[in-house]
């Protein structure tokens, strides 16, 4: 990756238990404060913010509006990626690489227990052919399992509420971003080979090239994959060249209950925490949309 490398100065997150009595700004506040404390910084040190959230999950138009104060964006720069938090981290890293900002706060939030979890995802499908069929992310996963000819039951990670934050900077620090990539797959499920994910292949190719990863099984020390459904862990691992890789999802993966859109950023936080204990190279992965239509990969190293 072109100089200067982007370092990860701090990470923070809430727990992900369902929290009917806690507002979204409060969740975000906790994650942001934890990341600032972890980095030994104050909000004054933050040059810009990239937030990640999706309106229909919040029931708000411009779902970053209510968190302006808690991310410190009053009279300050902020942008919002409508997608997975790991994607927001990629964008934050690029805005630093562009020379515009030195230190950027990345925050993702979702209170997935507030709404009709699968019903919402029906509105992701094109309104002409697929939405009227009643498809949602659960059915898309069922189709993927069926395409994989898997006999294992379909297990979805439990719904969860929470927020996660990281602080990226051009200020040197031990853990740095080595590579990243993301891509969108074909939208129509009937046009996709659901046993594969060309989007993940493409995202990984970009990230591996930037990071100089040649033999993933050998080069990586830790890998955290977004397994929104149980079957996805093996599918993504195989596409990433990580069949049988031992240090895969040591966190327990999303089955422990991690909110949508926070998931990719949570994977990154898991990797950062492990790399602080043991030097090496880690991979964080995020995906969003039906059967993982959107894919994002980040390689970080100590």
């Amino acid at each position, binding site marked *: 990756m072109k100089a200067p490398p982007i370092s990860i100065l701090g990470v923070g997150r809430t727990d992900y238990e369902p929290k009917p009595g806690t507002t979204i700004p409060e969740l975000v506040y906790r994650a942001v404060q934890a990341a600032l404390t972890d980095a030994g910084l104050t909000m004054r040190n933050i040059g810009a913010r990239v937030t990640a959230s999706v309106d229909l999950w919040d029931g708000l138009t411009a779902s970053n509006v209510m968190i302006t104060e808690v991310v410190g964006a009053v009279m300050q720069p902020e942008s919002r990626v409508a997608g997975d938090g790991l994607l927001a981290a990629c964008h934050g890293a*690029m805005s630093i690489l562009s020379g515009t900002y030195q230190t950027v706060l990345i925050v993702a939030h979702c209170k997935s227990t507030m709404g009709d979890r699968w019903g919402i995802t029906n509105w992701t499908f094109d309104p002409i052919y697929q939405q009227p069929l009643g498809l949602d992310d659960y059915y898309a996963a069922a189709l993927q399992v069926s395409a994989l000819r898997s006999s294992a039951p379909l297990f979805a990670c439990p719904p969860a509420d929470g927020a996660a934050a990281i602080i990226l900077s051009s200020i040197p620090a031990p853990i740095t971003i080595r590579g990243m990539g993301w891509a969108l797959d074909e939208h129509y499920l009937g046009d996709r080979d659901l046993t594969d994910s060309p989007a993940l292949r493409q995202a990984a190719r970009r990230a591996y090239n930037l990071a100089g990863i040649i033999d993933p099984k050998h080069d990586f020390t830790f890998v955290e994959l977004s397994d929104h459904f149980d079957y996805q862990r093996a599918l993504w691992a195989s596409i990433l060249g990580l069949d049988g890789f031992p240090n895969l999802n040591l966190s327990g993966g999303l089955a422990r209950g991690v909110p949508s859109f926070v998931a990719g950023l949570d994977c990154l936080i898991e990797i950062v925490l492990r790399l602080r204990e043991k030097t090496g190279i880690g991979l964080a992965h995020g995906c969003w949309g039906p059967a993982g239509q959107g894919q994002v990969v980040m390689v970080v190293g100590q």
Partner: protein
Amino acid sequence: MRRVAIIGTGQTKHTKSHNDLNQAELVHQATTRALVDAKISFRDVDAIILSNMELFEGRALPEMWVGEGAGGYLKPVMKIATGGTSGTSACIAGCHQCASGLFDIVLVVGWEKHSEGATQTGMALTDPLWDRNIASGAVGNFALSISQYMAERGVTPEQAAKVAVKARRNAAKNPYAHLQMPDITVDQVLSSRMLANPVHLLDMCPQSDGACALVYAAEDRAESLCARPAWVRATVTRHDQPYIGDLDRRLLTMRTLRDAAREAYQQVGITDPLRQIDVAEIYEPVSYAELAWYEALGLCAEGAAARLIDDGSTEMDGVLPVNPSGGVLSTNPVGASGVIRVAEAAMQVMDRAGAHQVENVRTALATGYGVYAWSDVIILSIDK
């Protein structure tokens, strides 16, 4: 930092209802036109930024379906959404991604298809405890702030109506504009239906269906692909408080726009914006806002905005033409509106604006406005 320039733009015709094109097709049409304008193909595009406010159409993650329209299959696609500023935020994001060194060509596409949703419902999905009851939707919350602006600045409905007239007359020369009214008069604006005192129907922007795309290229590519690219010289963002009651005299101070403009001018070396900027494409959702933005942008002293519209300073032949395209008052597909501002500013710098081209443009200003008082400021120039 790598220099970045805009090398092509493309728009659909903006209209009340595009029954002929779905959202993906709208995006495809604007994208193809931008690629043709930039003389490149889908293959040359390294990354794509999309801009859309999905609850206006009642969608979730619309890039999943619409991304293909922009040629997004297996490409890095990211959707940026920040309310009304979505389009300018996406343009700033695209510029930063191109400047990062990871991508050489970045496509930005904004779209909205208001005819497929209920815009007021989307606007009402704000904070449910306080603001939903008192400030839902642009008309109501602007009426509050405009009353205060008029009282303190002494601006009259006639002066605001002149802004509305200027916009729709300019739009008549822009083939893509939605409301084209070459013969509109001040009396017509003042006698149009009252929406919320003092805002008349013709003081307000329309709800449009449309898409707009632009192509960024990094320094070397921009110079080899385009004889007269529009170089990005400044990109500044300021957000503000989430509750309308916490914004101190919103239109009177418009502190986000004031601060963002000041920083952008400083980066480019502008000390007298009225004379040093050759054309401005500003995001004015309501006639009165344009006057307030003149002050915040430092085009005049506080309280002197009405004079700029009275003496024709911001008309097509004035010292600083503002919104030759017809602006948001004539065309407002929200997710595209900010992209249109930047694209129109680029067209002026590139000398490709056709019938609404201003002569001898070297420096152009584009702004975005969103939520209650969020601002983006972008400055483009013929000079690298």
